């Protein structure tokens, strides 16, 4: 296991794009955390003297929006929200997906067949519509946003884990564990899960940007985070409205989101190459 991790780390390091992507991501994360300390401005304050000010002209480094709110701090706050939701929802879908997949792959037979059919059906629907639907009908709450995102994220993970579990199931050490009388749950936890870690890590890394994208999309449409909370999606929506008069209101959050997603994707791809994971 150690040698495997070393080899993977080596391959990852020799991939300049992935390394750069990781560095930028970390830089962004650090920035969102320390940003509020280094900027003299506040997320809420409406600076009536500097409405829709372009960047660089004043104490507002990235300019201000229509209501005079500092864009730098707002964007960082929005990034923080997007990252938090992305991470949290990813963890949830990871737990659900891994559990579901491990059970399906381990038990096999008809149970597995049924469980995979469910996944097939859910994958077939254009989930975005379903999500918009639910979010709109049952209220614009952030909890529903979470549920909706969670409903989408676990599918691929479950499939991957199930595939891995199926192949591991055949191996001898599982037979040995069963023969020694270990319970199913224990076997799954102690033996199956550690061996599927590789692909899980990769797909978790690739799930995070997907979820961030979904959350931003919903917020952009007005179905996600509500005022006065800001997520990158809502900031971009505001910016798009002001595009012709004050382009920076769009450019700043837009660039942040684009950069974040790009780096996460590049890093995820690099990780996948390094761990040499094929699709389940």
């Amino acid at each position, binding site marked *: 296991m150690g040698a495997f991790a070393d080899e993977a780390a080596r391959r990852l390091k020799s991939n300049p*794009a992935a390394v750069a992507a990781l560095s930028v991501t970390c830089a962004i994360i650090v920035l969102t955390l320390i940003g509020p300390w280094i900027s003299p401005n506040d997320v809420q304050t409406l600076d009536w003297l500097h409405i829709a000010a372009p960047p660089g002209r004043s104490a507002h480094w990235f300019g201000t929006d229509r209501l005079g709110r500092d864009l730098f701090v707002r964007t960082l706050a929005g990034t923080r929200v997007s990252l938090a939701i992305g991470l949290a929802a990813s963890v949830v879908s990871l737990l659900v997906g891994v559990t579901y997949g491990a059970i399906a792959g381990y038990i096999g037979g008809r149970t597995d067949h049924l469980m995979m059919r469910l996944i097939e059906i859910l994958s077939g629907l*254009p989930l*975005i*519509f379903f999500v*918009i*639907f639910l979010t*709109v*009908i*049952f*209220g614009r709450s952030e909890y529903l946003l979470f549920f909706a995102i969670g409903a989408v994220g676990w599918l691929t993970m479950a499939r991957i884990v199930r595939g891995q579990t199926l192949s591991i199931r055949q191996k001898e050490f599982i037979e040995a564990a069963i023969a020694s009388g270990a319970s199913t749950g224990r076997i799954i936890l102690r033996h199956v899960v550690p061996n599927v870690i590789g692909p899980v890590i990769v797909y978790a890394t690739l799930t995070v*940007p997907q979820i961030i*994208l979904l959350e*931003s*999309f919903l917020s*952009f*449409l007005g*179905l996600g985070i509500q005022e006065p909370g800001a997520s990158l*999606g809502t900031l*971009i*929506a505001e*910016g*798009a409205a002001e*595009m*012709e008069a004050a*382009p920076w209101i*769009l*450019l700043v959050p*837009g660039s942040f*989101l*684009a950069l974040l*997603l*790009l780096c*996460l*994707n*590049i890093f995820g*791809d690099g990780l996948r190459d390094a761990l040499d994971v094929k699709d389940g």
Partner: protein
Amino acid sequence: MIRYFFTRLAGAIPTLLIIVTATFFLMRAAPGGPFDQEQTLPPEIMANLQRAYGLDQPIWTQYGRYLKSLMHGDFGPSFKYKDFTVTELIGQGFPVTLQLGVIAMALALSVGILLGTFAALHHNSAADYMTMSLAVVGIAIPTFVVLPFLGLLFGVFLHWLPVAGWESGSIRHLALPVIALALPPLAYIARLTRAGMLEVLRSDYIRTAFAKGLPLHTLILRHALRPALMPVASYLVPAVASIMTGSLVVESIAGLPGIGRYLVQGALNRDYTLVLGMVIIYSTLLIGMGLLVDLLYAWLDPRVRH
């Protein structure tokens, strides 16, 4: 094989029915009704409205009446846009959305396949890496960021293209929305084509074709292309779904009078018939696409036919 197609077609109808039924009852199950948004009306007027639209009937009756009207191609009146029936609304907006979607799909397919083939033929060269890097950008960056950025660049700064608005038959107004819409599927198709092509180029039968001294374009077009496109064929249905989703965003940002806005607005307004109409349209499109893809598989690989 014709029989297989009709079996699939027959199977599609129950699926559609299930989707319509589920949507119908889900919408009614949600809190609130179509007239809540208006200013509070006196109860008698509310009751009248309910009666006029048949909302006072038991739910199964409403369901039956709806299905019957569907048979006649009538989607019912819109609850929100009082002067129009859903059929009229869809009729107005659908051509726009269709135009947008079809052009975007065509663009994604043609440019994507071209780029993918090019990258595969120049495997491991600078051109290959550049093309694939562009593909990552296309996949990672969401449409609702790309379109405003494009608008900023080409509209506000360069003044080449209009940022928003719509004129019937005008290419200029469609240009940016189409490009933004086509970008993610284009990127995926390029990646899939490249992978498929690389795989195919390693086959024995390509070696034979090469040994026959055929010119490169013949080899690629006649021998390599069809099997290389199998993964792309599998992606077509998700591609259509992606374009449908994207059109929601694109139409709202660019102010295009298509049907995209009806889904979200309709759901927000509890405009039951409108939302149902939209769901039917979208589901039919996807299911239809699925059937087409099945036919496509048979053409790409004759072994499937037997």
